[in-house]
């Protein structure tokens, strides 16, 4: 049988390849280039000036704080959930896994809305919060909660299939050798899933720093106080400060590129381990 019977002719191959690359150039490369071009449209000095405003710095600070709280929370959750799901058999397990993935199918705006309905002034707990002088909505706690919600499944979703594939034998071996449950987790389980964990943390962090819709609903857009970087981009853009908006956006774009680079490196070097989670 000739090789061509299961291959396309060169013109077809090149035609399809060029069409696919053109599509990707249009939808992926062009926006990225546009961000950098617009950010530097008025030169390097204008770019630096745009980034040196106080509001910009406070938005960077808040973004880092929000990520620094929400990522560890979801790591703790991801580790606990994957341990319970992967190392034990219990009824209702598939329901639990579906519920963990639930936030992915909720619109970011609705993710913010539900916290407003719970903690807002007219919300279920609103009057009680007001009485005790606690502020969640239009304040940092609301931003953190909304971020935790939208990034909720990232770590657990990486770890559950990974731990399920690795099974229970190594932990059992550690126990027969006299290790405590905690030692087995710390010395055996955790090192075995470290790259998958890092992968989940990476994606979780990228989303936490870049989340817009959910955070926008609960933030109240108070400059210098409740503005994260993506929200600050919006404000600058709506004020027609395009260089400023794209300058802050360029920082987020760099974060995205670094995330992609590290992610690709992880996939390349630790393919075997990550394969369980379908990467």
């Amino acid at each position, binding site marked *: 049988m000739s090789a061509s019977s299961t291959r396309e002719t060169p013109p077809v191959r090149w035609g399809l390849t060029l069409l696919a690359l053109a599509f990707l150039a249009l939808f992926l490369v062009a926006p990225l280039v546009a961000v950098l071009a617009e950010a530097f449209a008025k030169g390097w000095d204008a770019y630096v000036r745009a980034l040196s405003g106080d509001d910009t710095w406070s938005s960077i600070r808040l973004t880092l704080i929000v990520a620094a709280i929400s990522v560890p929370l979801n790591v703790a959750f991801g580790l606990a959930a994957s341990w319970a799901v992967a190392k034990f058999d219990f009824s209702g397990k598939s329901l639990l896994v579906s519920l963990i993935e639930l936030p992915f199918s909720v619109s970011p705006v609705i993710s913010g809305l539900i916290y407003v309905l719970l903690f807002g002034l007219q919300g279920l707990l609103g009057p009680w919060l007001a009485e005790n002088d606690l502020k969640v909505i239009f304040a940092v706690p609301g931003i953190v909660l909304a971020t935790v919600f939208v990034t909720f499944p990232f770590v657990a979703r990486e770890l559950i299939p990974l731990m399920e594939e690795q099974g229970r034998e*190594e932990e059992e071996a550690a*126990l027969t050798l*006299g290790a405590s449950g905690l030692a087995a987790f710390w010395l055996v389980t955790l090192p075995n899933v470290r790259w998958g964990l890092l992968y989940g943390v990476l994606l979780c962090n990228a989303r936490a720093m870049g989340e817009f819709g959910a955070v926008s609903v609960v933030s109240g857009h108070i400059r210098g106080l409740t503005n994260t970087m993506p929200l600050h981009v919006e404000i600058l853009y709506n004020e027609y400060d395009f260089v400023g908006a794209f300058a802050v956006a360029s920082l987020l774009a760099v974060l995205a590129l670094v995330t992609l680079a590290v992610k690709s490196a992880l996939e390349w070097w630790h393919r075997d381990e990550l394969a369980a989670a379908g990467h």
Partner: protein
Amino acid sequence: MIEVENVSKRFGNFAALDQVSLRVAQGKLVALLGPSGSGKTTLLRILAGLEQPDDGRIRLGGIDATGLGTRDRKVGFVFQHYALFRHMTVAENIAFGLKVRKGANRPSKAAITEKVHTLLELVQLEGLAGRYPSQLSGGQRQRVALARALAVEPRLLLLDEPFGALDAQVRKDLRRWLRHLHDEMGLTGVFVTHDQEEALEVADEVVVMNKGRIEQIGTPAEIYDSPATPFVYRFLGNVNAVACRVAGGQAQVGGLHIGEGRADGPGTAFIRPHDVEVLELSPDLPQARVRQVVVLGPVVRAELELAGGVTVEAELSRDIKDKLGLRRGLEVSVFLRKARVFVGENV
């Protein structure tokens, strides 16, 4: 010494172990032999404390260990797929059990290094201390798993299908090596296998299991020469199972007397192929016709049709085959050296 008393274990509706009792004397190497689903691995895991029995007691060295956790049993367990810690080197794997000890029980760093070295020597892997499990062959992984289990100086060594995942030649070598190692160390050992040859060659004592029950316990010779049940007959070695009738204590197949039965009624006679002697045609002995002759290296297998259409297989040497001129269609006489008859339907 291990004492298992009336241990039962169910998984849902499946009875993995049903009232199992067993004693293993100090220093013996015992094989749990049976087909998959016979409960042998469950019993081993219960001994290790990896499963809890629903019912019954376990005593290790005279002390009740039934409720004792895995950590506190001081058993060495070698997993079927070794369960080596994949992110640790060979040396770190072996040292693990010593490193996780607490306080005064934990040996010094130097002592651990020394111990690891001794064990690596014992399992003949001196040069591979720095390797990771993924860089080892199956046989090497097996020996690392063994060294790791021995490092904690267990009073009991448990092995789950220790040679199951290895290819034939490595399997044979490791089998002998394990037997020698056991003799040198004098440890009590229990291993699970579904391979009769493995059980008969390596173990002091064989426990044959089926459907969650023990069929027979005995030395390899006892098990092979005097199987206690039809199951053991079928499971160990080749056997001819011939349906027969017992009347007046005599078992008959198509007029041919083949053995003695304890009660009257239908039954099954079990005859090992090497207990079927093939002779030149003689009027004093039952006759048979050769239906097929297969030469398997030094031995010859012949399919013989007895009177009444019953077919049995005989195993004989090349010499006898040549002497008789055994070939298809030849009429011969047979003599059954030994047969055992179990009375009852469907045995």
